[in-house]
């Protein structure tokens, strides 16, 4: 992407900027991160308001009504201002350094996965082939921030909360990982863009229609709720038992960081679930395809841009619905005991997820005749012209689309000349692997 932009800048007459390539790279990085941060932070602000409103309605109250008009929509701004003005306290018994670092670690672990999450075809900060695995791996680091916060506070309530968090999250990571593998097996790839694109078309192209994936999705939502420390699995926080769990000693902005991390994690897990199971940016009816809004991977077109906007909106709506579901759960179910949490995980989620995993493997094996063979493309009937005309394979096409350049097909290396001493076989596999 950066190379194409530099060439364009040169063409538009910004020769100085085009020569200073590093500024362009820096600007691209900053703009991408700022966009994602803006989107996520806006969502977090809206979620805090939604949480209050939904909890109010569920408990037959009004929720916020005073700040900003009838629906209290300025409440997040008022909350943020209040938290910024609060005194930042570090307890005398605390380990100062770790106490200060923990909230940032927590927030980073919740935010970094968004860098690999595609919002529409090509709309991803860093297109990774192993995006699913990357997101699960970084998301799992959130527990570190919580444990550090609980330990470094120097308070017994906090330490209890941290120990519960460790037990809970480390156990729930196992079924969560198994659930994520099921759609990966069905799609035959770990690339989130590919997984979502394979579900293009009508509602019955979604992974959710598969009975194994449907059960897996339910388990996934349970595990996601537990991973995000939401009620009924909010044992690390447990207001009525542990004061505020691992957050007891925090105040002001550092406390707000933990809350932002929680809502970030909820949104992330809901978006990941939407991409893996619910068609990603594809609606239940292929309206975008009828209107000719399919994005062209090679050229920027206005129609393609419109299609991407529509897809992005679609995905965010699904993510928000997932978050609303988690809020609904929180204000409906009572908190579980730690033994009930462990029973849910080890006695129900893990065996069920294992059965679904084995079932999916068997299905894939029987239907496709082997786990390694590529999946049949459900998208054959969609009128995207490149699918038939382009000589590139699917993998290459996706990478071309993600980069926005067509550098791949022009740079395919010519086969290396055989060497006089017969060692040509050493070079060939390396060179081919570098491209494929």
């Amino acid at each position, binding site marked *: 992407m950066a190379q194409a932009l530099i060439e364009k800048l040169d063409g538009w007459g910004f020769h100085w900027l085009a020569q200073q*390539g590093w500024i362009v790279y820096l600007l691209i990085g900053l703009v991408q991160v700022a966009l994602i941060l803006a989107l996520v932070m806006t969502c977090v602000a809206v979620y805090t308001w939604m949480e209050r409103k939904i909890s109010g309605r569920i408990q037959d109250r009004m929720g916020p009504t005073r700040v900003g008009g009838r629906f209290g929509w300025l409440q997040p701004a008022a909350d943020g201002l209040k938290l910024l003005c609060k005194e930042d306290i570090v307890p005398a*018994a605390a380990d100062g350094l770790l106490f200060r670092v923990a909230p940032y670690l927590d927030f980073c672990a919740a935010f970094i996965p968004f860098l690999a999450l595609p919002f529409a075809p090509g709309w991803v900060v860093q297109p990774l082939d192993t995006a699913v695995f990357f997101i699960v791996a970084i998301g799992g680091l959130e527990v570190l921030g919580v444990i550090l916060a609980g330990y470094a506070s120097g308070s017994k309530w906090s*330490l209890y909360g941290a120990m519960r968090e460790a037990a809970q999250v480390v156990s729930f990571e196992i079924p969560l990982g198994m659930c994520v593998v099921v759609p990966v097996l069905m799609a035959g790839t770990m690339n989130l863009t590919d997984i979502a694109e394979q579900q293009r078309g009508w509602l019955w192209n979604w992974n959710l229609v598969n009975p194994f994936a449907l059960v897996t999705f339910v388990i996934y939502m349970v595990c996601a709720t537990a991973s995000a420390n939401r009620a009924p699995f909010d044992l690390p926080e447990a207001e009525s038992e542990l004061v505020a769990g691992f957050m007891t000693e925090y105040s002001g902005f550092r406390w707000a960081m933990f809350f932002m991390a929680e809502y970030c994690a909820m949104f992330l897990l809901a978006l990941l679930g939407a991409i893996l199971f619910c068609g990603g940016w594809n609606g239940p009816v292929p309206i975008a395809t009828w209107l000719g809004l399919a994005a062209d991977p090679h050229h920027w077109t206005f129609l393609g841009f419109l299609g991407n906007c529509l897809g992005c909106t679609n995905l965010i709506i699904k993510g928000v619905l997932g978050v609303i579901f988690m809020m609904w759960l929180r204000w409906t179910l009572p908190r579980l005991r730690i033994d009930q949490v462990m029973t849910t995980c080890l006695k129900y989620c893990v065996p069920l997820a294992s059965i679904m995993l084995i079932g999916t493997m068997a299905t894939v094996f029987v239907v496709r005749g082997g786990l390694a063979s590529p999946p049949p493309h459900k998208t054959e009937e969609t009128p995207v012209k490149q699918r038939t005309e382009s000589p590139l394979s699917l993998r290459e096409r996706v990478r071309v689309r993600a980069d926005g350049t067509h550098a791949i097909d022009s740079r395919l290396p010519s086969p290396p000349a055989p060497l006089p001493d017969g060692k040509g076989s050493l*070079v060939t596999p390396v060179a081919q*692997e570098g491209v494929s």
Partner: protein
Amino acid sequence: MQAIHWDSFFFLFFALMTCVFAIAVVVSSNIVRMATYLVASLCGVAGLFFLAGAQFLGAMQLMLYVGGTVVLLVFGVMLTAKGPFVSMRSGGGQWIVALLVGGSLLAVLLQTVAVVQPIAKSRPVAEASADQPTTTQLGAGLVGVRTDQVGQGSGNGGQTSVYAGYLLPFEIISLHLLVVLVGAAFLARAKRRVAPREQGLEL
């Protein structure tokens, strides 16, 4: 104005992060801080993997090593904490011995690494990795298969030697870790044998 090569910049950044936090693990005396620094150091290694284009390996590094260190942290807190913050102080004599042993190991490693010719990018790989960086060349170089020296005939003669790749320093580190493991197990057992009666009740 001199252009910044982001690859080099981030390589130096992650390498520095790895080394600085690795030293911090040794210097620090608080168990939980040690574990935190270890996590930061391992994250730096993961960053190096991501930089080299080995995304799966990088994610694996985060998942296994950092996740494993978290469990270590929990055990460190649960099993050793008697006061609020555990600290392990080592005396001056221990520091001298440790510096001697560690320094000699470092000297051996540096010597074995310096013998190896640095890997130059061979033409086909350089062209291919312009689009997508891979670690194939580095991985092959580790075990002594030097793809960058194939075209030059057998002039350097290093291809069959142990010194062709980075296998020897790697094996030295592996052996060193094995010794450390055995030593740790021995130290942990020896403490219990000293006075089983008196300490048995406290457990």
